[in-house]
């Protein structure tokens, strides 16, 4: 019998697929639902210090092979998020995703998430469409180091850093996380993108810019994980365009110890976790991989 169990740093998961931050994870009850669909953990919506309505509509559209979104990190703020976390953590493992402008913000938010029962925190160093947050801090290795170090001293739960693929220095950013004591890296966030509507001669999104996700980005994400695996010792969590077991297997073989699913919760539905789990099990059975760990990084050999 094969096992879908995996561990990422200190965290043990029964199933290797998590809900990616920002998808069906802004409220307690919707996170609970995702566990029952077969997610091994849920990463919460990225939460900041204050309530944030996000960018005005339109902030989302379908494109070939995926979505472009600029939600703008809507969230009720860390204080109100306590209630959602309480509901969700009763049902399964929740990773608290947080965003901030600098080390103090991140430390404060991480502390709250720890209080709320998060099993780990995920630092959003990579959102491509929020001014002053996300990838603006995440493409500067020294800033990344500072933030991760600060959060590490502020909490005792594992600290994950979610990285942007919109840079040629991804491996250095990964190294910065590792050197600062980060417990894992998560790759990738969305690709910087824009949609223009010719008839209206303007960008569609109210924020103009957005981020591309979905199957269109999968080969970019697999490459990012593969590259990170060649330089890092800490675990990697793969995300970007996963919608079936083959996609998940690609990320695992590239070097991921676990993976996250975002857009496919829309394109396929929350049932996507069940079908990925089933598909992975039969594949592992047939090809003789007893565990996720035994498959992790095998494409490097």
């Amino acid at each position: 019998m094969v096992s879908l169990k995996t561990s990422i740093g200190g965290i043990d998961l029964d199933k290797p697929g998590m809900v990616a931050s920002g998808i069906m994870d802004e409220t307690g009850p919707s996170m609970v639902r995702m566990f029952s669909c077969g997610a091994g953990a849920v990463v919460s919506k990225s939460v900041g210090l204050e309530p944030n309505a996000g960018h005005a509509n339109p902030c989302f559209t379908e494109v070939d092979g995926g979505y472009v979104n600029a939600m703008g990190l809507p969230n009720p703020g860390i204080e109100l998020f306590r209630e959602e976390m309480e509901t969700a953590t009763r049902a399964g493992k929740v990773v608290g995703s947080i965003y901030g402008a600098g080390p103090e913000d991140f430390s404060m938010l991480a502390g709250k998430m720890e209080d709320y029962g998060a099993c780990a925190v995920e630092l959003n160093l990579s959102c491509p469409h929020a001014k002053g947050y996300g990838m603006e801090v995440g493409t500067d290795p020294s800033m990344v180091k500072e933030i991760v170090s600060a959060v590490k001293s502020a909490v005792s739960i594992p600290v994950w850093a979610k990285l942007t693929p919109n840079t040629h220095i991804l491996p250095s950013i990964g190294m910065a996380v590792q050197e600062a004591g980060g417990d894992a890296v998560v790759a990738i966030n969305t690709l910087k993108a824009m949609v223009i509507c010719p008839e209206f001669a303007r960008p569609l999104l109210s924020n103009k810019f957005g981020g591309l996700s979905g199957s269109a980005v999968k080969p970019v994400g697999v490459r990012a994980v593969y590259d990170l695996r060649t330089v890092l010792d800490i675990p990697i969590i793969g995300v970007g365009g996963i919608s079936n077991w083959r996609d998940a297997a690609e990320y695992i073989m590239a070097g991921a110890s676990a993976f996250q699913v975002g857009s496919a919760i829309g394109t396929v539905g929350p049932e996507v976790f069940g079908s990925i789990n089933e598909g992975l099990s039969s594949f592992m059975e047939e090809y003789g991989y007893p565990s996720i760990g035994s498959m992790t990084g095998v494409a490097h050999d």
Partner: protein
Amino acid sequence: MTDVVTIKRVVDECYDTKTFVFDWEAEARPGQFIMIWVPGIDEIPMSISGIDGREKSVTVKAIGEATRAIHGFKAGDRLRIRGPYGNGYDLGRGNLLIVGGGVGTAAVMPAVTTTGADTILAGRTQNDIIMEGVATSHSDNVWIATDDGSRGFHGNAVQLMKEKAALKRYDCVIACGPEVMLWFTYQACKELGIDCQLSLERYMKCGAGVCGCCVMDDSRVCRDGPVFDSEKLAKLSEFGVSKRDECGRTVKFR
């Protein structure tokens, strides 16, 4: 599916409501909706109020900036839309009674034209009754209810519905309107012991079941809904009670 369509016709439904007709190849089911871009202003959800082959329509009540801007659109203007989204009504649940309250009538009209089932159109006054012509040309029994009694039954949609359900056996009520009306519709159906399918509204961003902002309990109104039947409604603790704002904060109705 995203698309740019051309408005073929604009129909005045009443003092504050207009129907915009366009050709659109997409397959749409009664009860589904689309997202309409109002450039520079907003993008908002609108029920598909007419489905006639490739011809589709939306029926818009001007209540704020985006809907007022749409009212300025004319035949020949383009709409950038995406969809159709949502589950739609199941029209195969026996003998139907269809109820539209105010602009909620738009959402149920394709169910009326598809089934020709008995229909109640309700509004505050006679001036708020919309789409009566389309309804009567597809259904033999179209009843009107107005709160002020200016036309038809003097009273609200739910009161008239109860009266009609006492006279004839219906298996399922299909309704759309203000949430308070739907809440009482649900209670009335429970008492009458019949099923219902109600089309709900929540603030929508993606419309596609991704962002999670429109959830009621653990259900996405845009994807798992907007139509919920009695069985599902029974599990929605937020139905008639509260909604989420753009930040995801709970806001109580009362």
